């Protein structure tokens, strides 16, 4: 029975050995990961964590030492599994003898697209990524950002069910990034599974619904962006009350900062924040603001990876 997962790995492992076997590197160490269909998923990790090796194993560009991977219910090593996959590699190197349209045509035909569909789709996608008018220009004339957008168009040509993007906005200017995000949003709405491997945490946070953090080849954290970034508590800012009130507030606050006659307090729960408001009001302090404090994905990332050393 087919599962609801676009990507399903079981104990996926890659061990690199030096020629004489003296040096052993476990680039990916027993990763079991399931990514639901239609989900936008961020794959994070510091440099050398094994993210790219993991992606390459999904695409059979690298052979796993152990474990297995299924893509859209087919074994990853089956070429037909890649029929419905769009991929944009990191540090892509598109042959510069192609024109923009020629490149899209070549890779789409390798994906099994017929000539008529390609002809219809090429101007459509060039327009989508903002490269209309560049179709007959050789890639050697394209800027890095333009190549990145063209690479994205290449990955989308055959309307894949699963899109794997390795650093999709690398080298793209802010406007281009916004455009890429818009494109990905509309694909997500259409039900495309999007797997993003990126260092840009703010970008992943703003787009992905779920993330996993890979560290030294292992998944060390996995969850929805909402859950991972929520629940840090409440932040309260008021004019500084007398010292005896402050002492009482310090007992329930997780963090207290006094500066220039103002006090900023952090509370882990809502009831503690409400009690503090009552106390401050009774002491004659003026409340400036109360906000629900959430962590950024970057904070979660730094905390997770930092704790592991």
């Amino acid at each position, binding site marked *: 029975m087919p599962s609801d997962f676009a990507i399903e790995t079981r104990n996926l492992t890659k061990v690199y050995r030096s020629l004489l076997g003296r040096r052993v590197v476990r680039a990916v160490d027993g990763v079991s990961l399931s990514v639901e269909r239609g989900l936008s998923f961020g794959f994070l990790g510091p440099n050398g964590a094994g993210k790219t090796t993991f992606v*390459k194993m999904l*695409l*059979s*560009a*690298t*052979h796993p030492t152990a474990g297995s991977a299924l893509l859209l219910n087919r074994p990853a090593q089956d*070429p*037909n*599994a*890649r*029929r419905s*996959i769009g*991929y944009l*590699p*990191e*540090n*892509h*190197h*598109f*042959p510069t*003898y*192609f024109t923009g349209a*020629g490149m899209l045509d*070549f*890779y789409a*035909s*390798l*994906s*099994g697209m017929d000539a008529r569909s390609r002809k219809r789709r090429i101007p459509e996608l060039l327009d989508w990524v903002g490269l209309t008018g560049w179709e007959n220009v050789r890639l050697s004339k394209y800027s890095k950002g333009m190549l990145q957008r063209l690479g994205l168009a*290449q990955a989308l040509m055959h309307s894949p069910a699963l899109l*794997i993007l390795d650093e999709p906005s690398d080298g793209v200017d802010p406007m281009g990034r916004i455009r890429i995000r818009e494109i990905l949003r509309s694909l997500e709405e259409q039900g495309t599974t999007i797997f993003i491997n990126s260092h840009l945490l703010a970008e992943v946070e703003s787009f992905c619904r779920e993330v996993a953090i890979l560290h030294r080849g292992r998944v060390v954290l996995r969850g929805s962006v909402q859950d991972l970034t929520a629940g840090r508590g409440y932040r309260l800012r008021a004019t500084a009350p007398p010292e005896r009130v402050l002492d009482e507030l310090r007992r329930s606050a997780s963090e207290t900062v006094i500066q220039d006659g103002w006090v900023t307090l952090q509370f882990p729960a809502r009831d503690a924040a409400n009690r503090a408001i009552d106390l401050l009001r009774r002491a004659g302090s003026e409340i400036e603001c109360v906000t629900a404090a959430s962590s950024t994905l970057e904070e979660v990332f730094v905390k997770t990876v930092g704790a592991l050393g």
Partner: protein
Amino acid sequence: MRTIGLLIVDTFHEALARKIFWGLFALSTAMILFFLFLLKIDIVEGAMATISLLGQESPKRWQIDKLVRHVQSGIATFLYTWGMFLAVFASSGLVPDMLEVGRIELLLSKPVRRWQILAGRYVGNTLVVGCNIAYLVLGVWMILGWKTGLWPKAFLLTILFTLFIFSVLLTVVTLVGVIFESPAMATMVTVALMIMSPILAQRSLMERLLNSEWTRRIWRGLYWTLPKVYEVGRMTLDYVFDRTVSDYAPLWSSAAFGIAALAAALAIFMKRDF
């Protein structure tokens, strides 16, 4: 087949864009134009006149035939030496370029089998060179035929023999390219084999000169293992001159080497991590 066809066309496309095809084409055209120039100054008539001066009223047909075959053998020799070297040099980058980071992963992410990628590259490369060999040989054959009225078909076999030995050498280029991803290394190893070929071909002489049995065995082993560029070249000249060819061993042993080298390249390519 469709996938291999696409990859062959892509190899052609790349050869055109990198001026490899045009470089070889320009060289072949220069050769053909040189021939036309020679004919323009009536070198054939000059040669006929020389034969007349040597005591014969009018040159006989077999003498013209001999002249034509000598010219054709010159072309065949050129193809086997400089032509082959240029073709190997021009082809040396096509596999390493394909294996560049960021390019090979994209190819492998498509519903394509690895052997198809390498086969498409190999066949495409052979065809790029084959087109140029055919163009040069047919061009010279037609010019000489038009001028002398003689159309010895044996010369056309040069296309097949040259292409055959190039396709064998291309397996070395492919194998070295897959292992080292270095065009320079691919060229060096292949040219080294080409240089070794006439030396190894002196088998009977070396059997006499070498004083121990094991060195003779090594010599024989190398002789039978490595491609016989020199001997296949000699065989081509035998055909051009209408001489009988009795030993086809250089052909099949070179073919066996090519198959083994290509199989090794495929096996390594299939197992490699990118």
